[in-house]
């Protein structure tokens, strides 16, 4: 029975992610004084990519790369409680799931590195090298923030962290532990991968980064993963720092605002080079994270 609920919420999250991607593309187009794609364009792109007739493979890892990436995204989803206090939409949340989610975030990246490496295109190798080094530095402030809130609430279960934040917004982590929130929200910018931290895919410069050789169904899987990952990471931050959600409306509003904060910064700022972004993550967010750990203990 639980599986059916999980599939149902997966369906909702997937559709919400696709719609959100479409609307965000429209919004960023308006910033550039364009009209932009129709809001249902991500659906069409997905159908088209799954309907490509001829596929080429570069080897076993080339197949497994997108599979790893997608299983990383779905893995995060499976252990994420969506709606607080609702047994239907808690997925497989359990004690210690926070550690598991941090682990799943990295496994997709590693799988993609193997797949893109076997693709053999120089651009994908440059892209994945940048991606791995950037993501490693993102993990530093993120992990410090997680240590800080784990010490604050004395638990590693997301459900219990959400439960501790109930009862008005003065109980949210952003009010009780602003330093950890600041460090994690800066790390969030890098996780979503808009400018200034989009040097991994780097449109116009390093044409597509890791997915250069992926096409057809492989690319469709990567797109599916991308929309799920964006929504589920917003939901993770909502659960950890903004008091979670008690119904779907609150979830959508909060997740959209958190996601839009990354998009907003992405449309305003230009791109960092990889050495600049690494230095940046290891400087301000890391100091904030260390301070958060010191203050809470």
């Amino acid at each position, binding site marked *: 029975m639980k599986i059916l609920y999980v599939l149902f919420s997966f369906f909702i999250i997937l559709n919400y992610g696709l719609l959100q991607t479409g609307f965000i593309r429209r919004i960023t*187009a308006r910033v*550039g*004084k*364009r*009209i*932009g*794609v*129709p809001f249902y*364009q991500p659906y*069409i*792109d997905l*159908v*088209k990519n799954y*309907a*490509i*007739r*001829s*596929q*080429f493979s570069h080897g076993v890892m080339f197949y497994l790369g997108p599979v790893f990436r997608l299983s990383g995204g779905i893995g995060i989803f499976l252990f994420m409680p969506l709606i607080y206090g609702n047994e239907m939409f808690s997925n497989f949340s359990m004690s210690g799931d926070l550690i598991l989610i941090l682990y799943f975030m990295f496994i997709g990246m590693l799988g993609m590195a193997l797949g893109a490496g076997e693709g053999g*295109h120089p651009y994908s190798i440059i892209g994945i090298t940048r991606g791995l080094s950037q993501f490693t530095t993102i993990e530093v402030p993120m992990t410090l923030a997680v240590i800080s809130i784990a010490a604050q609430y004395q638990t590693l279960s997301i459900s219990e962290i959400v439960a501790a934040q109930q009862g008005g917004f003065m109980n949210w982590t952003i009010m009780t532990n602003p330093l950890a929130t600041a460090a994690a929200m800066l790390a969030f910018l890098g996780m979503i991968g808009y400018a200034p931290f989009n040097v991994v895919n780097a*449109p116009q410069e390093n*044409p*597509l980064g890791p*997915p*250069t*050789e*992926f*096409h*057809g169904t492989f*690319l469709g899987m990567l797109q599916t993963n991308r929309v799920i990952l964006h929504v589920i990471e917003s939901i993770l931050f909502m659960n950890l720092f903004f008091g979670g959600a008690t119904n779907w409306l609150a979830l959508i509003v909060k997740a959209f605002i958190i996601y839009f904060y990354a998009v907003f910064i992405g449309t305003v700022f230009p791109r960092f080079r990889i050495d600049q972004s690494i230095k940046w993550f290891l400087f301000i967010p890391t100091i904030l994270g260390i301070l958060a750990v010191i203050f809470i203990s």
Partner: protein
Amino acid sequence: MAEEKNYKIIQPEDTEENKFLKPENYKREVTAPDGETFVVDPINDYFCDAKPQPHAPNTIKIVEKFLNWARSESIWVLGYGTGCGSIEIYPLMTPRFDAYRFGVQQRPTPRQSNLFIISGYLSVKTLKRAIRSYEQMPSPKYVMGLGSCTINGGMYWDSYNTINRLDQYMPVDVYVAGCMPRPEALLAGFMELKKRIKEGKGEGANEYAEKFDWYKANQKKVIKDWNMPDYNW
């Protein structure tokens, strides 16, 4: 200390085929670390030269119709600046013409694109690269010839170094006439292409696979320094 080479280049025979072979594609005798020696032939070993196969459309008509609709509404362009026409492609994506409205998006790699725009005259040297890019695109794929040069040579019709008719070298779906066609004409070309795809006529990739020998013969007639595999994906 100079690096010791672990391979010996085998000089190719002096035949018509090997005349333009690049030194990096010469056969070589490699000695592995364990002392075993074997011959590496880059042209055959590093590229796949299997012939393309036609892919039949979905047999269920309504499914194929739906997929064709999706393909027509999501055209990913390989904007390969072959000639002066490429200057007309950039304004397409900017606010004035905004081709994104019609589901047309640019893609930097042939692996992910569906539409190959040959923008203007095609010199023989570029034709070689265009063919390689075209063959790397996954099926179904479409080609748009932009400008008069791709139709009959245009003002380059008697040039020693450009091709005159594009459809002898790759199957073309839509021609956009003009010298140069404005971005509006390009948009009209996209609309025409969409109509064709929705009618199920955008089967250029299958046509290329079926008449592969004819296309290859035409290509080899103009490309004198053919030093790549016959079919490379």
